[in-house]
C-alpha cells in the first residue's frame, strides 16, 4: 500500500463502491474496511472520551447506516463527501439519543440519587473539565465531587455546609445546564 500522505482515498473508494453496488462482495468488503478507518478517526475526534466499547458500538451503527443507504450515493459525485455526510448525521443523531436517554430518568424523578457510577452522558461525551469551567464554581464543584469523583451527597453537603436536599437540587440543575451548553455547542 502507498504512503499515508499520498494515498488518493477518493480514487480508491469510488471504484470500490461502484463495483460493490453492482454486486462485487470483495470490493464491498474492502470499501467497508477502508471506510471504517475514516469513521474511526471521526469517532475518536468527536467522542474520543467515551469508553472504547461504546465507541465501537457507535462505529458499527454508523457502518450499518452507511450500508442501509448505500444506494443513495450518486456515482458522479465525490464518495468521501457522501460518507462524511452520513457519518456526521449519524453521529449527531446518536449523541442526541444518548443525551435524551441520560436525562429522562433524572427529570422524571428528582429524588433518585445518581450513584457514583453513572456519570452523566454529557460529561462522558466530551472534555468534562472544559464544560465544568463554564458553570459557576460552586455547581462545578458539586458535579465534580458527586458525578466524577463519586463522593456521597451527604459528604459534599457537609463540606459546602449545605443540606443533602439542597445538593441534590443543585446537582440536578447543574447537569441540566451542562446538557444545554453541550447541546448549544453541537449546533
Amino acid at each position, binding site marked *: 500500500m502507498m504512503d499515508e500522505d499520498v494515498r488518493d482515498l477518493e480514487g480508491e473508494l469510488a471504484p470500490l463502491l461502484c463495483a*460493490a453496488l*453492482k*454486486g462485487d462482495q470483495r470490493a464491498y*468488503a474492502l470499501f467497508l474496511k477502508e471506510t*471504517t478507518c475514516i469513521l474511526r478517526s471521526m469517532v475518536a475526534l468527536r467522542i474520543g472520551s467515551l469508553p472504547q466499547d461504546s465507541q465501537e458500538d457507535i462505529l*458499527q451503527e454508523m457502518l450499518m447506516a452507511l450500508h*442501509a*443507504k448505500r*444506494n443513495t450515493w450518486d456515482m458522479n459525485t465525490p464518495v468521501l463527501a457522501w460518507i*462524511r455526510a452520513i457519518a456526521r448525521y449519524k453521529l449527531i443523531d446518536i449523541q442526541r439519543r444518548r443525551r435524551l436517554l441520560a436525562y429522562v430518568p433524572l427529570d422524571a424523578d428528582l429524588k433518585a440519587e445518581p450513584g457514583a457510577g453513572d456519570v452523566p452522558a454529557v460529561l462522558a461525551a466530551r472534555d468534562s473539565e472544559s464544560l465544568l469551567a463554564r458553570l459557576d464554581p460552586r455547581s462545578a464543584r458539586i458535579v465534580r465531587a458527586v458525578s466524577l469523583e463519586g463522593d456521597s451527597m451527604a459528604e459534599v453537603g457537609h463540606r459546602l455546609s449545605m443540606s443533602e436536599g439542597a445538593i441534590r437540587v443543585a446537582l440536578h440543575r447543574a447537569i441540566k445546564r451542562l446538557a444545554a451548553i453541550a447541546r448549544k455547542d453541537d449546533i
Partner: protein
Amino acid sequence: MKTEDLIADLSRDAAATPLRPLRIGAALSGVIILCAAAFLAVAGIRDGLGAALSDPVIGSKTFLPFVLCVAAVASALRLMRPERNGQFRIFVPALVGLAAGVVLVAGGFVAQPRELWFAELNPVSVTQCLGFILLISVPALALSFRLLAQGATTAPMRSGAVLGCAVSAGVTTGYSLYCVQDNPVFFVIWYGMAILIMTAIGALAGSRFLRW
C-alpha cells in the same frame, strides 16, 4: 459483535439499485396530480376556465402555485442525497412567489373599489378554500413521505417542509381550476395560508418520519 465480523456480514449483501431521483420525482408528481384530479373529478372544473387562465391576474392563481410546486419538488429531490443538505435552493423561487403575491394583492387594492376588497371574505368561502386544499394535501403528503424516505436526507425537517410546500402548491394548482374566487386579495392570502400551513405540517412530520 466485532467490527470485522460486521463488515464480513454486510459485504455479503453488496448489490443495490442506485437511487433514481428523477423516477421518484415522477412518482411524486403522479401522486400530486392524482389527488388533485380526484378532487376535480368530483367537484368539477369552473365555468370559463379558458378565459380565466388567459387573464394575467386570474391566470396567476394557477401559474404561481405551479411554479412553486416545481421548484419545491426539485428541492425535495435534491435533499434526498445526504451530502446536499445545504443546497435546497427554494428561497429564490419562494421569494419571487411571495413578491408576486404582494404585487397581486396591491394590484387588487388599486383596481377595485374599497367595498369589494374583502367582499368574498366570509366563513364559508374561507373554509371551502382552506378546507379543500388541506383535505387533498394531507393524503398526498402522506404518500409523498413514503417516496422521499427512500432517500437519505440529512436535514429531515427541511426536507419535510419543502415536501409539504411542494404537495400543497401542486394541490393548489389543481384546486385553482375549480375555484371561482378571482379577487387576488382573497386567493393570494388564502392559497398562501394553505401552503404555509402544509409547509409547517411537513416540517413537523419530516423531523419525525424522515429520520433514519
